[in-house]
């Protein structure tokens, strides 16, 4: 097992004290596998990803276990963690516009992990950076390496970010909304690129997205996050075609469909997304969920294991996966 996350919890400092934004999240990921974490903004999906990198905001407290190649990353000394970041675990971010240093040439930024982790000299790292830019199918990689980020388009910058992440051939790639800021046509190409690259090198991918369609297309497994808690998980195909959790169903219903009858209104999920950490005892979806019982607010969430490795966490779902 490449990565095993067991009962991960994250507490963030706020002016009112610590607030739990991620609740007992568990999942695992094998080499070459892909997992999609889906949730609305504030669902804790980005915090989960940042916890893996140990790049949470100052003062954040992580509990549970994050086993990467058998080693627990929780409480790992910063110096050890630094050796993993950018080498074994790499991450790409949502905003390719701002995620690159505006005053450094792209090539130098792509080369930086190589100089850091592989000890390459400037010339070798630059040559390798150009090869990487070529690998992410940037046109004229030499020119792109010499360019400053502002001279590249959004899609080109995201390719450069991917090249940077791939520099040291990481075992795990975390992609946090990698295509949200891009044009729709560019989105698909970037996602295909990530899929192709991970297939080439047996790199595992953790794709964080608010977009079910993106995850459905690119990930074998899916984790539905709400209010910092896993609502439902399992193989992406099964979960999305036959959702069992009321939240997953609501999320699927809220999705615009290309083949929807004309005039059908987009259904939004009623109410606004609960901030992570709401209903500390019960289900975070309680109240917004059409099936809410009084018990939902106060009863700790049960985990119902279904066939095919699926799990649902809902008081209203019985052992057979049907609503009670």
């Amino acid at each position: 097992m490449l990565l095993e996350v067991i009962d991960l919890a994250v507490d963030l400092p706020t002016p009112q004290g610590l607030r739990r934004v991620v609740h007992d999240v568990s999942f695992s990921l094998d080499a070459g596998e892909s997992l999609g974490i889906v949730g609305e903004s504030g669902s804790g999906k980005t915090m989960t990803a940042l916890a893996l990198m140990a790049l949470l905001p100052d003062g954040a407290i992580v509990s549970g276990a994050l086993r990467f190649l058998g080693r627990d990353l929780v409480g790992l000394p910063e110096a050890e963690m630094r050796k993993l970041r950018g080498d074994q675990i790499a991450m790409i971010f949502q905003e390719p516009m701002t995620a690159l240093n505006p005053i450094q040439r792209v090539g130098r930024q792509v080369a930086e992990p190589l100089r850091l982790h592989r000890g390459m000299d400037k010339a070798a790292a630059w040559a390798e950076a150009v090869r990487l830019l070529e690998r992410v199918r940037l046109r004229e990689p030499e020119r792109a390496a010499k360019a400053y980020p502002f001279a590249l388009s959004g899609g080109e910058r995201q390719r450069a970010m991917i090249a940077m992440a791939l520099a040291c051939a990481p075992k795990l790639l975390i992609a946090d909304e990698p295509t949200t800021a891009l044009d729709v046509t560019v989105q698909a190409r970037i996602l295909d690129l990530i899929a192709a690259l991970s297939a080439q090198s047996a790199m595992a991918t953790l794709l964080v997205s608010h977009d079910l369609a993106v995850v459905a297309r690119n990930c074998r497994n899916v984790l539905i996050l709400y209010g910092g808690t896993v609502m439902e998980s399992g193989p992406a195909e099964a979960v999305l075609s036959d959702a069992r959790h009321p939240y997953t169903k609501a999320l699927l219903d809220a999705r615009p469909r290309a083949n929807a009858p004309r005039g059908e209104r987009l259904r939004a999920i009623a109410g606004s997304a609960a901030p992570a950490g709401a209903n500390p005892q019960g289900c975070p979806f309680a109240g917004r969920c059409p099936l809410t019982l009084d018990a939902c607010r106060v009863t700790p969430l049960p985990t119902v294991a279904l066939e095919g490795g699926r799990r649902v966490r809902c008081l209203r779902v019985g052992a057979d996966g049907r609503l009670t």
Partner: protein
Amino acid sequence: MLGYALQRFLVLAATLAVASFVVFGVIEILPGNAAETILGASATPETVAALAHKLGLDQPFALRYWHWASGALSGDLGLSYAYGSPIGPLIAERLAVSAPLAAMAMAIAATLALLGGVYAAGQRGKTGDVAVMAASQVGLAIPNFWLALVLVLIFAVHWRLAPAGGFPGWSAGIGPCLAALILPAIALGVVQAAVLARVTRSALVETLNEDFIRTARAKGLSRGATLWRHALPNAMTPILTIMGLRFADLLAGAIVVENVFVLPGLGRLIVQSIGNRDALVVEDCVMLIAVTVIAINFLVDLACAAIDPRLRTRET
């Protein structure tokens, strides 16, 4: 880059023209003339008129401005009324004191500000940050000439580590000269450092919140390496810009501090010339300070463009 430099140079030339006009105008165009001021209230109209003629004050303003400006461009700064000698060499002699003083003070200010600001930004919100910011708040409040007096009391009078004033002249060797300049440079530099440390910190704190800082950390860079390699170069543009502006303030402060230490620099020349009612010398000195400030800001613009490629391509 060359196009940008040329464009900035044109702005520089235009600013210089405006500056010369303002400096000349303030002294020359407004009521009373230098002859009256020189001769004082007891002078008869005839003697004033005679002196005015001798000084060329009866010519039209535009002509006088032309003489002054074209003379200055060709290196002729005119004659000092009080010293009876050409102003150019007079100023050059004083610059031998003032220029190194300003350079030392700015070096002290920049060093302290960068160290303090970077440290505070790294410690953002923690005790070290608050301590540096509190110290800079105190530094902001201290008049530089008073700091100069206190430094004299401590280091010259009490501990006898440095001279209390005066300047031995460069023929006496570099050591004694630097010793004579160190206290004034500290007095000038520390106060500017207080301002610049705040600027450095806030520019850095803003940069540290940028996405590319997280990218740098995700590559495996340490906090320190991220700060120095990615955050500081990006924060340098605003820091350098403010440093350029504060340099003007430093030069003005030098006028006062030179008087505390009885240094034969430009500042002392200005104050003496005011006492001597030697308007042309004051004009030339103030203009020289303006030129220096404008030139420094031009260099700052170029430095910023060298750091930030976006500045080089953006049309203004």
